[in-house]
Every structure is written in structure tokens, then in C-alpha cells.
């Protein structure tokens, strides 16, 4: 079999040209950030299907009152945690890391990442971590404490199962993988920018990845330390009682440490999406971003404030009133930079020339729907309201509006947007549009009704519920099944278009202005044939008759 491929996809050695096995080995050992990025994306796709299957099982069980699909409550209890773990740690974060691996070095004009071998290692930590994390499925000992793993439920007394130990170790490994990735991104962005590219000239996606890497670097280790303590408590019962009140420990301490990571993790999962949407909106509106500097600073503000709000996940645990007031105010403050970003995107679109291809459709729908998730976040920031809604389906609706309508939709926007660069071919526009409409509509069908369920008092992670909630749950379940099935359109589109799509030019969307659009599609092994340079864009206000960056008005 002969491997025919262009650009970075082409085999490096003569041997690999004829042998698929050697070619695959070449991929597995690659240090090329682009190939590693594609591997991240493939891995993330598999994990997304896996997490999706879990979520559909959950929804099917809940479609009707009474146990029907799963007869075993203990299996059901494990599912929400496993779904969350798969989606957060093995889908969204690796998916964004994948796109960033491909795009960030090119956007800053670098031939590769700063530590190519480390990059490969960081990726290869993930599959074994995934196997460990989900080992419970093969061993019939699933951890049943949700993805939050609050002790004492998760300690060795109440979860005396091996699956839980493997899950904890798996999560520590994921943490190591993502911190290594973050170290790499920071070194790359700070040290390997091409000539002329100052920090405040960086494309917004690269900025987003920089801020995200900082978040990962400072937040993930705290989760690691909490999980270390938990592991020791599990392994040596009778000696370590960090979180077990039976020995003077404090269950709330774990929650503090956990949320000190897991709140910034929310921004780890959404900031890259913000960056992607910024790129997509600029290109498809033919306008530069509105208020670039404020956009960057609002990202930094979100990141810093993100470290100061973790206790809003714990308002119902009985922490002191004054502390809750402080955390509430800081939480509400986060809405300010987020609002700035939303308004700036709107202002970017305003007065532009907007072309609604699939990436732009996803970006637009993201704007409309993420706002719902953001505003329901303001609602649950108010302490008395939050206490009532805590651990109900309202919170489920809120996080899914943020993570599905936010992270997932932006990831789709990004993948569609850079697909011509990844493969040198266009995706099928019709399939893309069908995929978009099904996704956008059924996200609302699935998750909107859950706000209502939460306000009526249906708690989360319930195997069975009051029959009076049946209709709403049925609607949500139907929505989730269609939403899940619609994603196969996307996968089919990607697979089909990779071989048969329309061939894309270098600047596939014609209006791309960042460096990745100035090189071949797909890029060659070392990205740039000549040392690139960056001509500073004009970031200040531009009058109607002055030249303005790449697209000044011809004449009207």
C-alpha cells in the first residue's frame, strides 16, 4: 500500500511511503506538533463518543419514571461521574489542546513547539490515564461518587473498591499530562514568536491558550495534591484522616482544594473556545476584533478572578456568611469581563460583512446560547438562590449551557474553521449546516427544560424521580438522543471530506490574516519555508479614510 499525502501528512522516510505500519509508527513517535494535535483530536473524538454513550444511557434511564433500562442503582450512580470525567478530562481539554497544538505554533510563526518530545510524552500519558480511569468498567468496581469524589463517600470505608483507586490515579495522570502541555505552550508562546510579534500582537486564540496554560499550571496541581491526600487516605486507613471526621479530618477541606482546581477548570474549558470564536468572527465578518486590548485583559481578568471564586460551589456546606458574601461578589464580578467579551464580539459583527458558513453559524449560535448559560450563572451566583438551586437540575442545565453550548460549539466552530488547514480540503458545507441546525436546536431541547426541573426541586444524580417530573425528563431524553446521533453527521463529514472534499487554497476562507493562512494547506513539516515575520496590525481607532490593516474599504 502506498501512502499518498501532502504536507505534514506525508511520510518522512522512504520506508513509510510504502508501509502503513511504518507510517503509523512514525505518527506514534512523532514530535511534530501538527501530528500530535491531530492525534489529540482523534483521541478526544473517541472519548467524546464514549462520554456521549454514557450520557445517553443516563438520559434513557431517566426518560421514564421507574427503573427500566438499568436495573442496578449502583451502576447508574457511577454513570454521571464517569460521563463528567470522560467529557471534561478526556474530551474537552484534549480537544482544545489538540487544536492549539496544530494552530498555536503556526500562529506565532514557530516551526514547532518549544519541547517537541515533551509534547509527544504529554499526549501518550493520556491513553493509559483513560484506561486507568475507566478501569472500573472492566473490573465491575465502578467508583460511585461522581466526578467530584467528595470524601467521606470516596474514602476506603464507603468505596472500598479498586476501581476508585485507579480512577484517582488516572486523574492524577491526566493532570500531569495537561500541566506538561501547559508548560510547553507557555514556553512556546513566550519564547518562540516570530519577528515583529509583540505580546499584544498575538492572535486571540494564542492569547487564550496562553491564559489557559497559566490556569492549568496554577490550578491543576492543587487537584493533584487533593487527590494525593485522598489516595493516601484510601491506601492507609487508620493513619491518614485528612478528610475523614472520624479521625479529626475535615470533609470540607477536600471540597475547597477540589474547587480551587475545578472552578478555574471551567475557564480552562471555555477560554480556548473564546479564542477560537474570536478568530472565526473576525474572518467571517471581514473585520478586526473590536477592542483587542480589552479582549485580552478581560481574558486575564477572568483567569485571575477565576482563582478567587471557588467557594461558590460550596455555599450550601455551611461556610460562614461573611465568606460567602465575599465569594459571591467576586463571582458576580466575573460576569463583567465575560460581558465585555460578548459585547465586543457583537460589536465586531456589527458593521461587518458576515458570511454564514458552518464555522460562523456555530460561532453565532455560541454567542446566543452561551449568553443563556452565562446569565443563569449570574442567577446562581446570588447566594440564597444558589442554595436553593444547588445540586438540582438547574445546575445541570447551567453547566451544560456553558460546556455544550459553549465549549462544544466553539470546538466545532474551530474544527470546521481549521479543517481546510488540517487536511487541505473543505468539509461538505451541506452536511455541516445540517449538523449545525440539529445540534443547535437539540441542545436547547435537551437542556433548557432542565432549568425548570431544577426550579421545581428535582435533585441531580437521581436514579429515579417523582412521577410528576416525567414529561420534562422525557423531552430532555429525546433531545439528548437526537443530539448524540447528530454528532455522527459531523464524524461522517470529517471522514468523507478528508479524502473527497473540495481542495482548499492556502488562505481557505480568503480573509484569513493570521500566519496559518499564509502557508500551504496542509502545512509542510516545518510549517514555514522562509522565516516568517509579522507586520504589526493597527490596533488603534481607524478613521473612515485611513488604511485599516488588511481590509480597508476599497471605495464605496
Amino acid at each position, binding site marked *: 500500500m502506498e501512502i499518498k499525502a501532502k504536507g505534514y501528512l506525508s511520510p518522512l522516510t522512504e520506508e513509510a511511503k510504502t508501509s502503513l505500519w511504518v507510517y503509523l509508527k512514525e505518527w506514534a513517535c512523532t514530535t511534530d506538533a501538527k501530528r500530535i494535535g491531530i492525534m489529540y483530536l482523534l483521541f478526544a473524538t473517541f472519548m467524546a463518543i464514549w462520554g456521549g454513550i454514557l450520557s445517553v444511557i443516563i438520559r434513557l434511564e431517566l426518560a421514564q419514571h421507574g427503573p427500566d433500562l438499568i436495573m442496578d442503582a449502583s451502576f447508574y450512580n457511577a454513570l454521571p461521574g464517569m460521563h463528567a470525567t470522560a467529557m471534561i478530562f478526556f474530551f474537552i481539554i484534549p480537544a482544545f489542546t489538540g487544536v492549539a497544538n496544530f494552530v498555536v505554533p503556526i500562529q506565532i510563526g514557530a516551526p514547532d513547539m518549544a519541547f517537541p518530545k515533551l509534547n509527544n510524552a504529554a499526549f501518550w500519558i493520556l491513553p493509559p490515564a483513560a484506561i486507568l480511569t475507566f478501569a472500573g468498567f472492566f473490573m465491575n468496581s465502578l467508583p460511585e461518587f461522581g466526578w467530584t469524589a467528595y470524601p467521606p463517600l470516596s474514602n476506603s470505608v464507603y468505596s472500598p473498591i479498586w476501581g476508585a483507586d485507579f480512577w484517582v490515579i488516572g486523574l492524577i495522570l491526566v493532570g500531569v499530562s495537561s500541566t506538561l502541555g501547559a508548560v510547553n505552550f507557555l514556553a512556546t508562546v513566550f519564547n518562540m514568536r516570530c519577528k515583529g510579534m509583540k505580546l499584544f500582537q498575538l492572535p486571540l486564540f494564542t492569547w487564550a491558550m496562553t491564559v489557559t496554560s497559566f490556569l492549568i499550571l496554577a490550578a491543576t496541581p492543587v487537584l493533584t495534591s487533593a487527590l494525593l491526600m485522598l489516595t493516601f487516605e484510601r491506601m492507609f486507613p487508620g493513619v491518614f484522616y485528612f478528610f475523614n471526621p472520624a479521625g479529626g479530618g475535615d470533609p470540607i477541606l477536600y471540597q475547597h482544594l477540589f474547587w480551587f482546581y475545578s472552578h478555574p477548570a471551567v475557564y480552562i474549558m471555555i477560554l480556548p473556545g473564546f479564542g477560537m470564536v474570536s478568530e472565526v468572527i473576525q474572518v467571517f465578518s471581514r473585520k478586526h476584533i473590536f477592542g483587542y486590548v480589552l479582549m485580552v485583559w478581560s481574558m486575564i481578568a477572568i483567569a485571575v478572578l477565576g482563582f478567587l471564586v471557588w467557594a461558590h460551589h460550596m455555599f450550601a456546606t455551611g461556610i460562614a456568611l461573611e465568606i460567602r458574601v465575599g465569594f459571591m461578589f467576586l463571582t458576580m464580578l466575573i460576569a463583567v469581563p465575560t460581558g465585555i467579551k460578548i459585547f465586543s464580539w*457583537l460589536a465586531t459583527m456589527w458593521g461587518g460583512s458576515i458570511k454564514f458558513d458552518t464555522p460562523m453559524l456555530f460561532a453565532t449560535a455560541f454567542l446566543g446560547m452561551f449568553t443563556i448559560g452565562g446569565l443563569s450563572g449570574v442567577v446562581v451566583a446570588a447566594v440564597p*438562590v444558589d442554595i436553593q438551586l444547588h445540586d438540582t437540575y438547574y445546575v445541570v442545565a447551567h453547566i451544560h449551557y456553558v460546556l455544550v453550548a459553549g465549549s462544544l460549539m466553539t470546538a466545532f466552530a474551530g474544527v470546521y474553521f481549521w479543517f481546510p488547514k488540517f487536511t487541505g480540503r473543505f468539509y461538505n458545507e451541506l452536511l455541516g449546516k445540517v449538523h449545525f441546525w440539529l445540534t443547535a436546536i437539540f441542545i436547547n431541547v435537551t437542556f433548557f427544560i432542565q432549568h425548570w426541573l431544577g426550579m421545581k426541586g428535582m435533585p441531580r444524580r437521581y436514579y429515579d424521580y417523582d412521577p410528576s417530573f416525567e414529561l420534562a425528563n422525557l423531552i430532555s431524553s429525546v433531545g439528548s438522543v437526537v443530539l448524540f446521533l447528530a454528532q455522527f453527521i459531523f464524524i461522517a463529514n470529517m471522514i468523507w471530506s478528508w479524502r473527497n472534499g473540495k481542495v482548499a487554497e492556502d488562505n481557505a476562507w480568503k480573509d484569513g490574516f493570521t500566519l496559518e493562512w499564509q502557508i500551504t494547506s496542509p502545512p509542510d513539516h516545518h510549517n514555514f519555508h522562509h522565516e516568517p515575520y509579522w507586520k504589526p496590525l493597527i490596533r488603534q481607532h481607524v478613521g473612515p479614510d485611513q488604511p485599516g490593516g488588511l481590509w480597508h474599504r476599497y471605495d464605496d
Partner: protein
Amino acid sequence: MSGYFNPRHLKRAALLLALTLALLIPATAFAVPGSGEFIAHYTENGREMTGLYNMVAKICLAVLIIVEVVLFAAIIKFRRRSDDERPLQNHGNLVLEIGWTSAAALAQIWIGVATINVMFATEVIPDDIDMTVEAVAYQWDWQFVYPDHGGLVHGDLVVPANTNIKLEVTSRDVIHSIFVPDLGIKMDAVPGRFNYWWFRADGPVNQVRVDEFATVERPEREYVTTRPDFMQTRDDATNKTISGLEQRVTYLGRSRTVEEVSPYANYSAIEYQGTCTELCGLGHWDMYFRAVVMTPSSFRQWVFDMQNAVTEANGPDVFAARCATCHGESGQGQGEQFPSLVGAARVVEEGQKDSHIQLVLQGQGVMPAFGQILNDAEVTAVVNHERLSWGNAGGEVTDEDVARVRESLGLPPFPAGGVEPTPTPDLIAAGERIYESCVSCHGRDGQGPDYIPSLVNNSKVNGDVAALAELLIKGADSDQWPGEKSPVARSMTDFQLASLLTYLRGSFGNESDPVQPGDIERIRRDIN
């Protein structure tokens, strides 16, 4: 720009319509009629929180509408019409940027200040707490302890209305969270610490309208809620006008079946559903309890009834409620964590009786200790059920065995505190107050005008209690008493009637035995 009836434009309009449907309808439903709202209506604090939610939601809705309108306007107005279009560049507008930053900040400060007001109003525990209830969670049920009432222990949260109640929430094993949506109660139950919550429940709103004997007009309560729901889950408690149990819970999970007649049907009460909201293991979804709000007099009656109640322990029922979640309905167990009871050495061997009892009382590993959850009779019943069912033949244990093991382990007896009859002076004091409404006919000394029978040395008063009670409950139109004897006791609680009778039988020179509320309960049951 070509004409408006260009088919391409029509197609785009259809797409826009679809986008509108996909985004705007659920979006506007976010905080306007149809979205549903809080159901925490039946406490003062709950109404404050609902009001706060409504306010925040309205602000958010306004922001949402602004964003969506601008978004749609941009979509419609600035879509690309020709390929060589080149828009005017602008890279920012300082005034605009400062404007929306400060507007967002101001809105947040507004919400924040309003929230803090509500927080201090609802969360600071007031000094005048009338009653304390300890809510103890365990895997997987609740236990409510009433330290003010002799350490009474009950599986449902029963409280008097219009009383400041302080809940002390804690857990025996893992983290749970108590949640009564209608009353706006939510607090994590963390092992090793007490969390506090307070509330003042409305209770049965129409308690005074007993059939035709409506005597007091009470204004209808103004509820903060005005928004209709697009889907109704439960009946609105405010719309009921019947006496007795105004609203009953219809679903209590799998381990508790909802009885045909609620155990609280005898009291003037209202029932709400309570649950656990923090993932706590296998039976997390099955931790329902009733939150019952009673009129204060009904509550006194209930306390008395509970203190005098003799529960008959039913082994299979106890097993279904406490053990079946893990060990399976027929003791088959689940996986390695939850061993099978069928043929297990501890369960079938004669010599392991004590160790079987000890395991139930103290628990082991995942298994909770039932020593403070089940009383001796219940432990005996459930142990015997396990030893004699599913083909097991392990020999019976007795209450004495359980008491002996409990003592040898140094465990405190359960339930703590004793069962005390209500003291007679209390009954007389209460009865004297109730008699005030009889004075107009019977006179302060029991001797009214000629046509009213005297109560002094009256054979009915001093005779059979059942007949006397029936007379007062049903009324009479007999030869002896022409005209009608009012059914004054129909709307009285057991406690009230018992105290009235005790007063009558112990005053005006009468010297008959006092009447306990429990007697009245039995009499009422016989009458019906």
C-alpha cells in the same frame, strides 16, 4: 439590493426563523411566564428568596434580550451580500467599551446588594428560636430528633406552623444534603459538624374554615409568585380549602410506599416532600421524607401521640426499608461490597446470633450502624426475618437478646428518653382556656340558666368518657336536651378535647379521672 421577493431572501428568512426558534423561544422562556419558578412559597424566607430570584432573573432577561436583539440585528443587517464587500474597519470605541464595562459592573453591584439584604434577612438565625430539631442523615434515610420534646425521634420532619424552627443538620456517615423545596430548606449534612438553618413555615392556611363553622375571617395571604407555570407538577397548596390534611405527598421513593391514608391525616397539617441532594451512595435517590407542618395544637397532639405510640415491628417492612437497598429484596446481595444474606454463616448459624445482632447494631465498613436507628423490637424483627427467610434456618432471637447485646456493647438504649403521659395540671390549664367559649351558656361555675344542664355532678360528665366525647364531637338533638348540643369538639384536636374533658371532670366539685389525648384518639377512631 434586489427586490424583497427574491427566493434566496425567502430561504434566508426561513433560516432566520429557524434560528429564532432555536434560540429565542427558550431564551425568553428563561425568566418570563412559562419558565417555571421557585416553589419555595410556604415560608417567609422562601418567599424572600423567590422574590430575589424573580428580580435577578428579570435583570438577566433584559440583558439577554439586548444581546439577542443586537445579535439578530447584526445577522440580518450585516450578512454578506456580495463577495467583494469590504466593511469599514474600526478597532474599538473607548466610550462604548467603558460604557458597557461600567454598566455590567453596576448591574452586578445592584444584584449583589439586593442579594446581601436577602441573605441577612434569611440566613442569620434569629434570637427568638422557639424550637430546635436535629436533622440527622445517614445512608440512606433521615432521622429527626426533637430535643425539646424528650428526645423524640421520628422519620419525618414534623413542625408546628408559624414557629421559628432551627434545624441542626448533621450526618452519621457521608455528606448528605437536606432539601425541602416548598419550604426553601437546603443545607448540607456534613459528618463531624452541625450546620444550621432556620425557617418559619406557614402551615395549613385555611385551618379555621371547618365546614360550616367558619368563624374567623382571615385575609388570603399575598404570595410573591405571580407567574403561571407552563407545566404543573403538584397542586398548589394555596388553593385548597378543605380541613385536615391539606396537601399530601404522593411519592416517597422506593423504600417508602405512600399509604392510602397519610399517617398525618388525623391532624390539621400540610405535607411537603423532602429529599437528599448530595450524592451519598447507592440509595441517594431514595432518601425521601415528609416535611409536615401542623397547627401548633395539632403539633402538641402529635408529640403526645408519638410519645405514647407503640410501634409494632414488622420484620419484612423494616428489611425492605433499611436493608433491601444493598442486600437486595430477597437478600441476594450486590457484588462484593454488599454480601448475600442467603446462607451466610452469620445469619444461619445458631452460635452467631449475638454477632449477627452486633453487626446490625454497630455496622461494619460500608454498612451503617442501626443502633440509633432501630429500636430493640425492630432489630429483633429484622434479624428474625433474615434468619428465617429465603431458605435460611438460623433460629430466632428475642428482644432480650438484643437488649443484652446492646448493653454489652455499651450502646445507649434507643429511643432515648421515656414515654410520659401529659401531666394533668397542663391539661387542666389548657382546658380552662378552652372552657372560656362555653361560659356564655354553662356559666363560669358550670351552672348556667335553668334550661341549660348543669355540669356539676352531671352523670354524663363524670360517667363514660367515650359517650361524653362522642356527644361533644357529634352534637345531639335528644329528648333530654331539646334543641341542639353543638358539636363543639369537631374542630378540636385530641389534645384540646382531652384537656377540656379533664377540666370538666376535675372542676366545679367534680372529681373524675383525667382524660389523656391518646384516649380521645382511640375514641375518635371508634366513632368513625
